[in-house]
């Protein structure tokens, strides 16, 4: 919480927002620390150092969105002709990048069910240079044995990138588990207030930093100083938010599991959740995203239409609870047959639990689920 919060020049306990695109050069013959905002900005740098510290990495980089972070990370390490092995159920935007953007540049992919790390082994080919994973996955919170994946990757000399958005480094540190690169949509829990769009890439090894820095500077999808500052501000309350939201989420998940109108509840904190034991080894909390499958489509739609306290919207991770419908929202990019094969059917709801009183949240869900039409 204390990193990045002091201005060296004045002692101010909040880093100034350097709304500057350029910087005076004191010496024409020597490169200066600050030259041009795209290459480096003091407010963004404070954030980037904070991100690196949080993830226990060598260097952090901030981007204008999670997708910009993901795109830059891939461009930094992958080249034409390479092959990527990716988690089968993954955020729709990442899916779109892999299927609708990268293939044109000769970058191919295979989706794998990573709940069994051995499936990855089978999918690796001669040109595989990257394993891209989400754990827990979005939206069904499927869990992967991260250390096992890291081991397989190292054996084959393959790079690993893990999207750590749902957990945040407060609960899960992929780089400590052997992953090479951690990526975030900082829009979500890191920012925590649904008020900014941002992305982050953190590398474990110092020698990997150069490629990301070069691509960040050359392709310029940088996070602006204002939003960098807001993100630092959000991170100050990360631990308190995650603790309370996690406790709320567990209560909501347990309550949902008891309801007759739910057919399946997805939450790593439930002991029946597949991978629960592995998860406890690699994370110190279960997070604040719960997904649920209702008994009928009508029920799912009714809940979405009748909730009053829950916000019906895309996104997640903020202090206000958000109820999403993956089929039409986060996973709309995935073709229907594939989406349904993954279990993301029209009865799946995704809940991002916020800081409200959990009984208020439950009461609202109950009235939405049970009120006759």
């Amino acid at each position, binding site marked *: 919480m204390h990193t990045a919060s002091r201005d060296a020049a004045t002692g101010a306990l909040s880093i100034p927002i350097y709304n500057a695109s*350029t910087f005076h050069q004191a010496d024409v013959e020597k490169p200066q620390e600050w*030259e*041009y905002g795209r290459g480096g900005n003091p407010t963004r740098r404070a954030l980037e150092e904070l991100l690196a510290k949080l993830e226990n990495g060598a260097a952090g980089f901030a981007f*204008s969105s999670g997708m910009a972070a993901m795109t830059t990370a891939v461009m930094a390490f992958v080249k034409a002709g390479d092959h990527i092995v990716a988690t089968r159920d993954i955020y729709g935007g990442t899916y779109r990048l892999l299927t609708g953007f990268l293939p044109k*540049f000769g970058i191919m992919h295979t989706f794998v069910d990573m709940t069994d790390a051995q499936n990855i082994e089978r999918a690796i080919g001669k040109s595989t240079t990257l394993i891209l994973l989400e754990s827990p996955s979005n939206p069904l919170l499927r869990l992967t044995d991260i250390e096992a994946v890291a081991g397989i990757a190292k054996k084959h000399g393959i790079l690993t990138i893990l999207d750590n958005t749902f957990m945040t480094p407060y609960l899960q540190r992929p780089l400590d588990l052997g992953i090479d690169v951690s990526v975030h949509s900082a829009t979500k829990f890191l920012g925590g207030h649904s008020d900014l769009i941002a992305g982050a890439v953190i590398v474990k090894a110092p020698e990997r930093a150069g490629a990301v820095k070069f691509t960040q500077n050359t392709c*310029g999808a*940088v996070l602006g100083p204002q939003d960098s500052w807001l993100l630092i501000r959000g991170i100050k309350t990360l631990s308190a938010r995650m603790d309370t939201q996690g406790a709320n989420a567990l209560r909501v998940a347990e309550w949902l599991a008891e309801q007759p109108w739910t057919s399946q509840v997805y939450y790593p904190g439930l002991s029946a959740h597949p991978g629960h034991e592995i998860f406890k080894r690699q994370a110190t909390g279960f997070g604040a995203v719960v997904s649920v499958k209702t008994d009928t489509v009508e029920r799912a739609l009714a809940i979405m*239409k009748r909730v009053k306290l829950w916000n019906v*919207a895309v996104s997640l991770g903020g202090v206000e609870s958000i109820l999403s419908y993956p089929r039409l929202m986060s996973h709309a990019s995935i073709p229907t047959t594939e989406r349904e094969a993954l279990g993301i059917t029209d009865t799946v709801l995704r809940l991002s639990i916020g800081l409200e009183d959990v009984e208020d949240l439950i009461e609202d869900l109950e009235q939405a689920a049970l009120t006759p039409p």
Partner: protein
Amino acid sequence: MKRRKSIETILSHAGLCSDPATGAISTPIYQTATFGHPRLGESTGFDYSRTSNPTRLVLERMLADLEQGNRAYAFSSGMAAITSLMTLFKPGDKVLVSDDLYGGTYRLFEKTFKPWNLNAEFVDFSDLAAVEQSLDRNVKAFFIETPTNPLMKITDLKKAAKLACTHDALVIVDNTFMTPYCQRPIPLGADIVVHSGTKYLSGHNDTLAGVVVAKTAGLAAKIGFIQNATGAVLAPFDSWLVLRGLKTLAVRMDRSQENAATVAAWLTKRKGVRTVYFPGLSGHPGQRIHKTQSSGPGAIISFRVAGPAVVKKIINRVKTITFAESLGGVESLITYPISQTHADICAAMRDRIGVTDDLLRLSIGIESCDDLIADLDQAIG
């Protein structure tokens, strides 16, 4: 036919009353990531700020209007705009690019896209016959700067567009130096206009920004897909800063250009100054063409001195003018292209185009012209 409002009026009204809820004169900053849906399956038109944000949209509409394009997209930096734009093309495609250009664009082509087999060939676009020599069936676009950075070479945009048309190639123009206040490439035949909004559009050296404007709905849709999928979007606050800057674009350009013309004329007579590059100077190559396609000479001046020792002396001595990268702001800046903006260009090409160690570039701001000349005078010595 209803008279189109003059550009000075359009600019000074940038973002005016864009908030229907309150009538606020200044565009609200929608500092939000997401938007509530009134009902499932119903949207207010905004779902997620990466895809579209109301503040950014006000800016994007303004830019489309200014450049007379179908749709505009705002990015987190000029390089983010160019990167996103270039992903329209595919491996095997070739782009003919102005050979006197910003070093960051060069670096992107050579270091990022070339390994993906998306190739750039750098040609002198002030000589369209030379450009024609380089045309082959892999050429999918022209990427033109006019005037070029930093030697102010001029390209005949109408003729370039006709040439591109015969080959089914897109015409992309980086209009950063001129801005739509002085030059509008789309009516002259360009398909896409790109800006580092960091420069004149924002005008205060206080934010990064990039812009892509598409002439047609078809191109716009493709660029919109890329902006959403790869997400290098301009943030709401920074969008608002650019809008704010646009309001004074006309008066800033007027004053800067006036100053630049006076400074350039003074430089041509000054002992110790060799060649001066400025489209407003009579005898500047391409000036006649420039005058048919733009309404002002711009406010960038490049000039040569005896050598690096003199360069160092000038840079160390200027007080009113600041030694820094970038350009286009209200405060005048001096840059040393070979070691700063054009450092990434390989030495052979730099020599060929004339970006050598005796060249300085001035971005003239809106200070008192007398102060600027006095500063240069004491610095040159």
